[in-house]
C-alpha cells in the first residue's frame, strides 16, 4: 500500500513538473482563472441565455453563458427536416411570402422584447434580410410564433429593433427600389425612380402579434442599421445610411465618395400622430402575415394588399438627417438614451451624437441645407464628442453598467473600450478574427449586465481543429468585470453569429413550457385517445388520424393506399410527459420526418409512387421499446379495389 502511494506521489510530482513547463513554452493567452470562470458543472445551469442569429442558416441558436454550450437551434426562416418545420402542413404557411413559398432565409439581428427599456423575456424578434420579413419567437415554447413580410422593402437589414416598451419593432430598407411609381424602369434611372422605406410594425401588448402600422418614404440611400431610443430619447429611432451618393453600380468605390453620409433620426411618436391625423397615403403592395394559431397548433397565412405610407413632405418635424463620417454601419444608443454612437466603418474616429443637442438644434433650426426636403442638422451642433483613433473599421458598440462603451473593430480585429463623456480609449483586446457585432448581456438596454462581452467573429481560420475549406464561425467570451478585458473562451457557432442578445436565465426559464396540454389541442385532425384513430378516404386524398404513445403506433397496419394517392398522416403524440417526443417516418417519404412534442399534432404529406409494403416507425428514441414502435402501410396499384382498412393488435 505504502509503496503504491509513494509511486503515485512521484508520478503526480513529475506530471505537474512536465505540464507546468509545457504550458510555459506554449504561452497561454488567457489568465489561469479563465477555466474556472466558464466552467459550469454537469447538472448546473448557465447564468445567461444567449440568442445568436444563424445568419445564412436562417435560424436562431440558443447558447448558455458563460459555458458557451449550445442549448438548441430554433428553426425560423429555413426549413428544418430534423423536426419537420417548414415541411409539415402545420408550419408550411409560416414560410409563405408574396414570392411564394420561400424555404430559407438570412437572419441577422435577434432583438428581445422590452419593457421600460429592459429585456422582458417574452419574445425574440429577428429580421430576414433577403425576402424582407420579421419573425417573432415565443420564449415560453422557443418556437416561431409569427412571421410578417415587409412590403416596399429590399434588404431588410436595419431591423427589427423594438422601441422602449415594444410599442413597435422598426425596420428599414438597405436596397432602395422603385416603390410609388412605375416598377419597370432602367436601373440607371436610380436617382429619379428609386426610394427607400422605413416601417413601423405595431406589436400587440398582450399577444405580441405584429401588424404593419405605417411606412415612411425616405430618400434612395442604403439604410444600414437602426436602434430605437430609450430614456430621454424614447420617442425616437435612429438609422445609419450609406450611399448618399445614390450610386447604383460598383458600390465598393462609388458609395464611398462622400466624406460624410447620414444618421437619420425618426420621431416615431410624431409618425404615429400623423398617421392618426390621416396624413398617410394608401399603397397596394402585397405582403404576407403568417402566425401560429395556438389552439389548432397550425400556422395561418394571410395575404394583405394595402398599407399606409407617410411622406415626410406632409409630415414636418418627423425626420432629420445628421451628417456622419464615411459610410456609417452600426448605430447604438447609450443606457440613458442621451448618446447615439454611429460607427463609420471607413472612418478614423467614432462620432457620438447628443440627443439633447439634437433637440436644441432642431428647435434652433441649426440646419445645413436639406436632402430631398429633409433638414440636415449641422454636425457641430449635434455632436457630443469623437473617439479619436479607436482602431480600424469600427462597427458596433455596446455598453456596460459603469459608463463604458465597447466598440468592435472589424479590420483591426479588436474590441476597444472607451469612456462615455471623456471619449478616451481605456483598454483594447485582440479578437480572433474579424469581429462583426459584439454583445454585452443587456448591453443595448437601460440596465446592462457588465460582466461579459461576446465577440461575434466572421473569420475563424486556425482557431479550431480544421474541418476542410468550410469552417464554423466563432464566438469569444471576454470578461469585462475589471479594468482590463480578459479573454475567457472560444466556441464555434452554427451559421453566422451575426448579432446576439443575452438575458439572465431566470427571466426566461421560469416561464418555459414543458408539454402541450392535450385538452387544449384543437387541431382539426387531433385524436385525444387511441379509440379515435381512423383512416378516411376522400377521393384520392387519404387522411390518417394516428396516435403515438409509448411504445406503439395506432393504427400500425394500414391497407388501401393506392399509387397516386395524397396521404396525410395527422399524428398526435398522446404523451403528457416532459421530454417524451415521438417521431414519425415512412420509407421513401419525399417530404421530411416529424418530431412531435407531447400533446402536439403534426401532419406530413406522403405521395406513394410505387406498389408495395412501406414500413413506418418512430424516429425519436423515446423508450426502451422505441425500436418496437413500428408499423406497415400497404400501397396497391392505382386502379385496384383494396379497401381502406386499419388496425392495431389484430
Amino acid at each position: 500500500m505504502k509503496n503504491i502511494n509513494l509511486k503515485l506521489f512521484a508520478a503526480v510530482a513529475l506530471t505537474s513538473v512536465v505540464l507546468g513547463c509545457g504550458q510555459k513554452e506554449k504561452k497561454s493567452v488567457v489568465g489561469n482563472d479563465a477555466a474556472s470562470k466558464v466552467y459550469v458543472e454537469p447538472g448546473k445551469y448557465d447564468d445567461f441565455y444567449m440568442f445568436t442569429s444563424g445568419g445564412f442558416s436562417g435560424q436562431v441558436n440558443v447558447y448558455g453563458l458563460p459555458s458557451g454550450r449550445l442549448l438548441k437551434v430554433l428553426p425560423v426562416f429555413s426549413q428544418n427536416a430534423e423536426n419537420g418545420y417548414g415541411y409539415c402542413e402545420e408550419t408550411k404557411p409560416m414560410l409563405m411570402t408574396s414570392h411564394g413559398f420561400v424555404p430559407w432565409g438570412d437572419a441577422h439581428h435577434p432583438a428581445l422584447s422590452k419593457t421600460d427599456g429592459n429585456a422582458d423575456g417574452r419574445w425574440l424578434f429577428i429580421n430576414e434580410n433577403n425576402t424582407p420579413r420579421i419573425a417573432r419567437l415565443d420564449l415560453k415554447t422557443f418556437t416561431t410564433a409569427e412571421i410578417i413580410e415587409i412590403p416596399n422593402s429590399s434588404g431588410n437589414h436595419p431591423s427589427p429593433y423594438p422601441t422602449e416598451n415594444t410599442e413597435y419593432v422598426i425596420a428599414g430598407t438597405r436596397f432602395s427600389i422603385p416603390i410609388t411609381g412605375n416598377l419597370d424602369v432602367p436601373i440607371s434611372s436610380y436617382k429619379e425612380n428609386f426610394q427607400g422605406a422605413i416601417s413601423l410594425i405595431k406589436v400587440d401588448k398582450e399577444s405580441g402579434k405584429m401588424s404593419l402600422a405605417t411606412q415612411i418614404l425616405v430618400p434612395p440611400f442604403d439604410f444600414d442599421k437602426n436602434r430605437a431610443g430609450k430614456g430621454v430619447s424614447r420617442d425616437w429611432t435612429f438609422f445609419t445610411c450609406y450611399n448618399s451618393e445614390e450610386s447604383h453600380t460598383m458600390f465598393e468605390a462609388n458609395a464611398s465618395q462622400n466624406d460624410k453620409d447620414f444618421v437619420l433620426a425618426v420621431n416615431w411618436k410624431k409618425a404615429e400622430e400623423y398617421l392618426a391625423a390621416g396624413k398617410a397615403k394608401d399603397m397596394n403592395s402585397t405582403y404576407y402575415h403568417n402566425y401560429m394559431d395556438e389552439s389548432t397548433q397550425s400556422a395561418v397565412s394571410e395575404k394583405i394588399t394595402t398599407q399606409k405610407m407617410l411622406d415626410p413632405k406632409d409630415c414636418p418635424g418627423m425626420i432629420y438627417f445628421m451628417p456622419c463620417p464615411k459610410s456609417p454601419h452600426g448605430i447604438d444608443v447609450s443606457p440613458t438614451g442621451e448618446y447615439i454612437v454611429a460607427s463609420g466603418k471607413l472612418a478614423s474616429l467614432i462620432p457620438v451624437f447628443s440627443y439633447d443637442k439634437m433637440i436644441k438644434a432642431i428647435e434652433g433650426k441649426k440646419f445645413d441645407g436639406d436632402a430631398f426636403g429633409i433638414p440636415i442638422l449641422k454636425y457641430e451642433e449635434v455632436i457630443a464628442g469623437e473617439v479619436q483613433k479607436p482602431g480600424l473599421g469600427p462597427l458596433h458598440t455596446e455598453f456596460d453598467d459603469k459608463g463604458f462603451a465597447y466598440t468592435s473593430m472589424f479590420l483591426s480585429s479588436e474590441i476597444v473600450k472607451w469612456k462615455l463623456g471623456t471619449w478616451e480609449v481605456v483598454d483594447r483586446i485582440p479578437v480572433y478574427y474579424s469581429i462583426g457585432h459584439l454583445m454585452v448581456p443587456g448591453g443595448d438596454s437601460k440596465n446592462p449586465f457588465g460582466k461579459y462581452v461576446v465577440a461575434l467573429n466572421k473569420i475563424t481560420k486556425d482557431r479550431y481543429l480544421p474541418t476542410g475549406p468550410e469552417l464554423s464561425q466563432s464566438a469569444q467570451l471576454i470578461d469585462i468585470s475589471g479594468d482590463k478585458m480578459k479573454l475567457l473562451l472560444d466556441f464555434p457557432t452554427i451559421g453566422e453569429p451575426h448579432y446576439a442578445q443575452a438575458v439572465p436565465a431566470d427571466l426566461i426559464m421560469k416561464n418555459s413550457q414543458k408539454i402541450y396540454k392535450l385538452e387544449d389541442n384543437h387541431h382539426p385532425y387531433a385524436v385525444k385517445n387511441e379509440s379515435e384513430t381512423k383512416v378516411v378516404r376522400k377521393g384520392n386524398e387519404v387522411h390518417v388520424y394516428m396516435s403515438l404513445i409509448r411504445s406503439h403506433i395506432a393504427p400500425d397496419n394500414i391497407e388501401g393506399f393506392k399509387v397516386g394517392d395524397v396521404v396525410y398522416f395527422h399524428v398526435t403524440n398522446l404523451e403528457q410527459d416532459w421530454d417524451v417526443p415521438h417521431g414519425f417516418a415512412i420509407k421513401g417519404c419525399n417530404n421530411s420526418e416529424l418530431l412531435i412534442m407531447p400533446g402536439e399534432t403534426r401532419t406530413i404529406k406522403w405521395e406513394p409512387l410505387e406498389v408495395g409494403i412501406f414500413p413506418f416507425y418512430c424516429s425519436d428514441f423515446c423508450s426502451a421499446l422505441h425500436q418496437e414502435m413500428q408499423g406497415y402501410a400497404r400501397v396497391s396499384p392505382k386502379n385496384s379495389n383494396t379497401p381502406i382498412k386499419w388496425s392495431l393488435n389484430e
Partner: protein
Amino acid sequence: MKKMTFRKRILYRSFLVILFFVSLTIYTGCKSESAEEEQQEEQVVDNTPKGGQASVQDESSEQDVVKVAVASPDHTILVTALKAAGLVDVMASSGPYTVFAPVNAAFDALPTGTVDNLLKPENKDALSNVLQYHVAVAVYKDVYFKDGQKLGMANGENVVLTKNGDKWKINDANIVGSVMASNGIIYVIDKVLLPPDKK
C-alpha cells in the same frame, strides 16, 4: 490504510516534505503568475450528478409510476421497498412499464419478518429480484390481455395472466384496479408475486 510503524511514518513524512519543496521550486520556476491565480487553479470541482430522473422538478407532466405509487396510501411498503432496492430512478425513466403493485395488506400477509428481512441492505439483490418480478417493460393494457398470456418480467422470469369471470389474475394475485401513469400503467394487486426459486 494499515497502521505504519513510527519509523516508516517519519520516512514517509520526510519524503512528502521533500517532494513538496522540490515540486514548489520547479513550479514557481515555470510560472510567473500571481499567487491568487495559483490558488484558483487548485479549486476543487464537484462533478457529482445531483440526482436521477425521479428528482426532476416537473409540475406540468402527468405523474410517472413512482409518483402515482408515492401518492397512494395503500402502497407505502412498495415505495419503501423500491427505495431500498435503488429502483426509484429506474421506475421514473421513460420506460415504458407495466407495474403490478401489491397493496400494503399483500406485503403484510407474507410470513412474519419476510419484508423486514428483504429490506436489509445485504438482501438488496433478493429484494430487487422480487420487485422486478412485478414490472414488465411494455404497456400492457387490459383490452389487449389474452387468457393464458405470458408476460416477461424485468427480472427475466415470466408471469401468467388468466381470466377469472370478468376479472383478471396475474399468477395467483387478483388485479383489483388500474391507474394510467405517464410512463406506463399500474395494476393494483392483492398478493405479492413471488418469483420462482433461482435454478
